[in-house]
C-alpha cells in the first residue's frame, strides 16, 4: 500500500562507516507516506546501522537522509527537535526507562513538549496503552513485563506524541510466534487506522510477509541494496539467487547446487 506515492523519507547516496570500515556504500531509496516499509537482510548487513542513521543517532559518512524534506543529520537545536517530534522509535530491547513506571515512560515526552494538564497526559498515555493492548499495566515497572509486553509498551511510548513515522528495530526478535503475530497485527492496525508510516528493521520472514508493503534487502557482500519490491514478488520472481534463497530459507550450498 504505497498510497499516493508521496515520499516522506528520502535516503540519497547514503554511505555509513565506522571509522575506515564502510558498512553501507552509496545507497538511495524512498519511503512513501503511509506504507509499512521493511529493511531486511542477513545478520551484520547493516540494517540497524541504516535505521540509526535515519533517526539521527549517527551522521552519514556521505549522502543525505531527508525526513519530510529536512536533512536530519544537518539539523540542530530547534530544527532537530522539530524533526524528532515527527518520528517515534521503538528499540530492539524496548529501551524503556527502568526507573519509571510504564505510565511515567509514556508521559515523559508529553511532560517535556506539551502544556497539557497531568490528567490529560494520563488519559493520552492510557489510551496509547489501550491501543497496544496493555491496559492495566500502567503502574508496573518495565522489569515486571514480559519481553513482548515491553516491546508493545515501547511502541506505545514511541506513539505518545502521535508521530507520523514510526521506526521499529527488530520488533519480533526473541518473541514467541503468537506474540510476534499479535505485534504484526498491531502494526498493521496502527498503519491502516492512524495512517502512520512504519519503517521496520527485521529478518523475521513471517512478519515480513504479513506487514510489509515494500522491502529493501541489504547484503553485506555488496554493502548495499540487492533487491527492492514486495516480499512475495521477490520470493517468487527475483533474478538474484541469494534473494530467493533468503526468502525461501535455503542454505547457500543448496542454491549453489
Amino acid at each position, binding site marked *: 500500500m504505497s498510497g499516493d506515492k508521496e515520499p516522506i523519507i528520502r535516503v540519497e547516496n547514503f554511505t555509513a562507516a565506522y571509522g575506515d570500515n564502510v558498512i553501507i556504500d552509496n545507497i538511495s531509496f524512498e519511503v512513501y507516506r503511509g506504507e509499512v516499509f521493511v529493511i531486511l537482510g542477513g545478520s551484520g548487513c547493516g540494517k540497524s546501522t541504516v535505521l*540509526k542513521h535515519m*533517526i*539521527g*543517532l549517527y551522521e552519514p559518512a556521505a549522502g543525505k537522509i531527508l525526513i519530510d524534506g529536512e536533512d536530519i543529520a544537518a539539523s540542530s537545536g530547534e530544527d*532537530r*527537535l522539530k524533526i*524528532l*517530534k515527527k*518520528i517515534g*522509535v521503538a*528499540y*530492539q*530491547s524496548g*529501551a*524503556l*526507562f*527502568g526507573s519509571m513506571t510504564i505510565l511515567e515512560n509514556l508521559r*515523559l*515526552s508529553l511532560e*517535556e*513538549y506539551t502544556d497539557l494538564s497531568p490528567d490529560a497526559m494520563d488519559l493520552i498515555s492510557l489510551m496509547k496503552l489501550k491501543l497496544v493492548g496493555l491496559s492495566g499495566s500502567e503502574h508496573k515497572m518495565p522489569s515486571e513485563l514480559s519481553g513482548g509486553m515491553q516491546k508493545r509498551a515501547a511502541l506505545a511510548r514511541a506513539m505518545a506524541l502521535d508521530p507520523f513515522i514510526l521506526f521499529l528495530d527488530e520488533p519480533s526478535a526473541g518473541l514467541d510466534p503468537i506474540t510476534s503475530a499479535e505485534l504484526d497485527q498491531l502494526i498493521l492496525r496502527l498503519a491502516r487506522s492512524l495512517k502512520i508510516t512504519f519503517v521496520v528493521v527485521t529478518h523475521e520472514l513471517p512478519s515480513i510477509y504479513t506487514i510489509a508493503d515494500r522491502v529493501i534487502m541489504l547484503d553485506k557482500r555488496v554493502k548495499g541494496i540487492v533487491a527492492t519490491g514486495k516480499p512475495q514478488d521477490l520470493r517468487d520472481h527475483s533474478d538474484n539467487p541469494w534473494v530467493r534463497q533468503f526468502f525461501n530459507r535455503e542454505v547457500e550450498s543448496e542454491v549453489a547446487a
Partner: protein
Amino acid sequence: MESYVKDSNLSSITSQVNSDGSLQLNIAGRLDSNTTGKIWRQAKNEVEKNSPRNLVIDASGINYCDGAGIALLFELQLHQQKAGKEIEIRGLANEFQQLLDQFKAGEFIEAEVEVPGPSNIFEKVGRSTLDILQDFKANISFLGEVMVSLFYAMLHPRSVRWKDFLITSELIGVNAFSIVALVCFLIGLVMAFQSAIPMQQYGAQLFVANLIVIAMFKELGPLMTAWVVNGRSASAFAAELGTMKVNEEIDALTTMGLEPVRFLVVPRVLAALVMIPILTIFGNLFGLIGGLVVMLSLGFSVVTYVNQITSAATYVMLLAGLIKSVVFAFIIGGVGCMEGLRTKTGASAVGDSTTSAVVVGLVMIIFVDGVFGVIYYFLGI
C-alpha cells in the same frame, strides 16, 4: 562407537619423493585433536624442507578425521595455494572429503589480507596520541556541555528534573552520611593519637586540637568526603548511565529530543554540588569529635578543646575547604556521568566505565587538591 584414546601412536606419516618430482605424504590412522599435533609438525617440516611444486597427500589410510585433522589437510591446501603450487589429496574417505569441501581456501586467503600488519613504534605512538587528543577533546566538549546545561538550569529552574535531583541527593548525601561520618571520625581520632605522642615530648599536647581543626577544615574534611563519595557515587552514576546506554535508553532519550546531559547529568551534578559540601561540614565535625576523644583520654576537658579549636579555626579556613568540596563535587558528578555516557557495548563495558569513573575521579581530585594547595599558599590561607 568411537572411543576416546589418548595415544598419539595411532596415527603415522611417511614421506617420499616421486619420480615426477612431487612430494608425497602418506598419512594414516586416526587424525583427532590428540594425534594431529605431531603429524602437523612433521607434515609442515617436510613441505617447508622440500618446497614441492606438486604435493600429493595419500589419505587412504586415514580411518578417522575430526576438525583438527581437517584443519591439517586444509592448512596444507592453503600453504600450497598461497605459494602458487599444486596439491592433490588422494583417497580421503567420502565423509571426510565432505567436511574438507566446506572450506574454500580463497576465503581464508582473502580474510588474511584484511588483517592489518604489525604497526611500528611511530604508528603506535601516533595512534595513542590521537586517541589521547580525541579523549581530551571529548572531555572538554562534555565539560562545556555540562556547564552550559547547568547555566541553562539556573536560568530555567523548571527545566530541571527535581524529582531525580531529590532521589540522587538522598543517594549521594543521606545514604553516604554514616560512612563519611565514620571515616572522618576515625581520621580525626588516628591523627590526634599519632600527633599526640611526638607533641607530648615538647609539652605541646594541647596544640593537637589546632592541628586537627586546621587539617580537617582545610584538607582532610573535603578530601576524605570527596574520596568516599567518589567511591560510592561516581561509580553508581557510571554504572546507572552505562546500563542505560547498553539498554539503548540513552538512544531512546536522544530520539525523543531529550538531551541526555540536561535530562540525566544536570540533576546528578546539581545533587553532588549541594550534598558534598554539606557532607564535608559533617565530615569536619566528626573529625573534630574523633580528636576530642583522644584529647579527653589525655586529660583535657571539652571546654579546653573547644576553646583551642575556636581560637585556631577561621571562617576563611572553613570556606576554603568548602570551595574545594564544590569543585570536587563537580568532578565526581561530571566524571561519573561522563564515563557512564561513554560506555561502549559488550559484557564488560559497564564494569570498565565504573572502574574508569572511580580512578579518573580519584586522580582528578588529588590533582585539583594540589592546585588548590598552591593557590591557597599564595593567597596566604
